[in-house]
């Protein structure tokens, strides 16, 4: 590596980070907050006592039964819930009526443990043979061979990281490694997904392989079918360009997917159906939920004949129509599946986080906690607010932001918006969302930088307020960026320097950077918001 390159990049990061210096006392506050946080839930002693009592009863019952019968009866040994985990393989095992959880990561450590949940109790399985610890393995229940199939994943414990391509099956008692003649070689830069197609009675795997041609490497989608003993690559004429979840409505197999690439043109959730030969896009009658932060989970509610989606909110999809639900308690985006013994969709833990190991069930109108989390809730960080009314948010922001002036907030917003965000002495960032989540507005102190990659984007300078001069521009102009001008409600933002003072890290400078960004608003609506800033 040439030293000048390193030096320039380091110097650039230095300048960038100089604007966000280490907050004074962060180390002391962070360490103290951590060590005063309970390592186990206050509920756990009672839970352990309960578990101990149950185990004792089970042992006594076993002894009695053993005394009365010739053959021993295995003791049921329920345990507490598994540690919260991200990137685990979670599947419903129909043959045994259990949820099966394998691997993932917790606290930075990769896991190779197996847990089952029968609708009431967790059990830490201790099979004689297990796959190695890994994250992001794909798994699904094979309705033909009545086993859970697990494929691949990524271990991150060793000095060299190699994407796995091994295949395992779970029969309720142990894992068995399969030795197929062919195996997909998929990259877990985009974790693969697996599901059973009831129409063709086959297990399908969808993922991306790295294909190198000359000096370039591309991620190529691949679809594979599992016969029970070998993998066969299929060659569908059309395939999604990104991966979400597979789910089945009992008749067909579907694949959800976020938009591929940069989502600046509007981030829409996509769905494809496997027609036995190819992936076919599924049309929807209304606006589909925004894909949001890229975190979502989905399962089909066979009882109610609708898809249930978690993405920070709860959504259902039936008869080609999306509906936002309003549960009294919103679980994190967990591992979701339909759980036939309870006749409802359940969500376990947090799929890309470790905030919970609870199991919640969807009763068609609300989420009900079936087994509580043993992870203590995190306190709300200082300065966070919402969701609240825009008026309440404005009051909080104006009372909190004292070191940067002026504080500009919109006097006009589209109807039905709720506000949430962060406000500190010298900074604020507020996001307004409507109920259907198809309109969002963000106002913050800062400068925007458009995403790369779209040649049609419009980046212009427009006369706005009494803005101070931007780079290469005269005073009185703001930068107006529209990601896709052909989309009347596409993403856009406006950034400028407002006359005033701004304090960052204890030093005060003149001029306050502002940004107003929006998705789902028409140009007219956007400017109505921007021109109402007071």
């Amino acid at each position, binding site marked *: 590596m040439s030293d000048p390159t390193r030096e*320039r990049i380091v110097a650039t990061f230095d300048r960038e980070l100089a604007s966000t210096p280490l907050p004074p006392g962060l180390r002391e506050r962070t360490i103290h907050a951590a060590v005063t946080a309970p*390592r186990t839930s206050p509920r756990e002693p009672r839970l352990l006592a309960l578990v101990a009592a149950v185990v004792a009863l089970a042992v006594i019952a076993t002894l009695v039964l053993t005394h009365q019968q010739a053959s021993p009866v295995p003791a049921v040994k329920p345990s507490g819930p598994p540690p919260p985990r991200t990137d685990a393989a979670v599947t419903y095992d129909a043959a045994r009526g259990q949820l099966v959880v394998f691997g993932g990561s917790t606290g930075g450590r990769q896991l190779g443990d197996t847990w089952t949940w029968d609708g009431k109790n967790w059990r830490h399985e201790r099979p004689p043979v297990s796959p190695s610890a890994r994250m992001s393995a794909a798994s699904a229940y094979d309705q033909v061979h009545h086993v859970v199939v697990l494929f691949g994943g990524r271990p991150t414990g060793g000095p060299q990281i190699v994407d796995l391509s091994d295949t395992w099956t779970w029969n309720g008692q142990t894992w068995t490694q399969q030795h197929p003649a062919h195996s997909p070689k998929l990259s877990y830069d985009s974790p693969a997904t697996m599901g059973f197609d009831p129409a063709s009675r086959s297990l399908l795997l969808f993922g991306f392989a790295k294909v190198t041609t000359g000096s370039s490497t591309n991620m190529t989608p691949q679809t594979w079918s599992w016969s029970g003993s070998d993998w066969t690559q299929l060659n569908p004429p059309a395939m999604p360009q990104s991966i979400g979840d597979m789910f089945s409505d009992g008749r067909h197999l579907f694949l959800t997917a976020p938009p591929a690439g940069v989502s600046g043109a509007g981030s829409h959730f996509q769905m494809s159906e496997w027609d036995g030969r190819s992936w076919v896009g599924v049309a929807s009658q209304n606006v589909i939920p925004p894909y*949001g932060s890229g975190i979502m989970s989905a399962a089909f509610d066979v009882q109610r004949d609708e898809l249930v989606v978690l993405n920070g909110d709860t959504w259902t999809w039936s008869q080609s129509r999306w509906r936002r639900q309003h549960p009294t308690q919103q679980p994190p985006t967990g591992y979701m599946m339909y759980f036939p013994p309870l006749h409802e969709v359940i969500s376990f833990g947090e799929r890309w986080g470790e905030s919970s190991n609870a199991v919640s069930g969807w009763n068609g109108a609300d989420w009900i906690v079936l087994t509580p989390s043993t992870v203590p809730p995190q306190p709300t960080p200082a300065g966070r607010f919402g969701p609240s009314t825009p008026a309440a948010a404005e009051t909080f922001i104006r009372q909190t932001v004292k070191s940067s002036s002026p504080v500009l907030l919109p006097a006009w917003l589209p109807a039905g918006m709720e506000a949430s965000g962060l406000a500190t002495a010298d900074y604020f960032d507020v996001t307004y969302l409507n109920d259907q989540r198809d309109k969002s507005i963000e106002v913050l102190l800062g400068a*925007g930088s458009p995403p790369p990659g779209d040649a049609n984007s419009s980046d212009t300078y427009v006369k706005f307020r009494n803005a101070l001069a931007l780079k290469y521009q005269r005073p009185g102009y703001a930068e107006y960026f529209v990601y896709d001008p052909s989309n009347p409600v596409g993403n856009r933002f406006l950034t400028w*320097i407002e006359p005033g003072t701004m304090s960052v890290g204890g030093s005060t400078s003149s001029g306050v950077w502002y940004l107003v960004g929006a998705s789902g608003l028409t140009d007219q609506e956007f400017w109505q918001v921007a021109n109402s800033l007071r």
Partner: protein
Amino acid sequence: MVTTASLDDSGLVPAARAGDERAFDAVVGPMIAPGYRLAVVLLRDSGEAEDAVQEACVKAWRNLRTLRDDAAVRTWFLSIVANQCRSMRRTRWWSVVRHGLLEISDHARSSAVEDELDLESQLSRLPDTDRAVLFLFFYLDLPLSEVGRILKITPEAAKSRVHRAVTRLRLSMTEVKT
């Protein structure tokens, strides 16, 4: 409370596991600053970065018993921070730079200064994952194998991303050592 006064470095992790705040501070405390900077690079927001580091620290405290290699604290903690950032990443489709850094336009800037500002602009427009590999590889000077473990990608993928990001920045690159 166990005192750390008599503990050498090899005893710090066990003492921290046992609940010693000072030992935990000695083990994880030095990682707070690089963890915060990594979070700023990934989240581009100091408030969210602070939240991410605080949550990562709580997870580190709760999961210290799972740390198998006491010498690998840096990789372990930064991987928790990176994972926390991933789960916190907001819905923004633009990147935001809070500053300070973007000072008021000065038409009298030298071309060298303009070049550096352009580099800042290009760096701010890179995808978060590319920014993260550049930060870990160049700024923290970590080997690619460690960069890979923190970001849960292969060293080859880390190397490839460094090359790609440097190319996007239109800088020269002669060699990347694993």
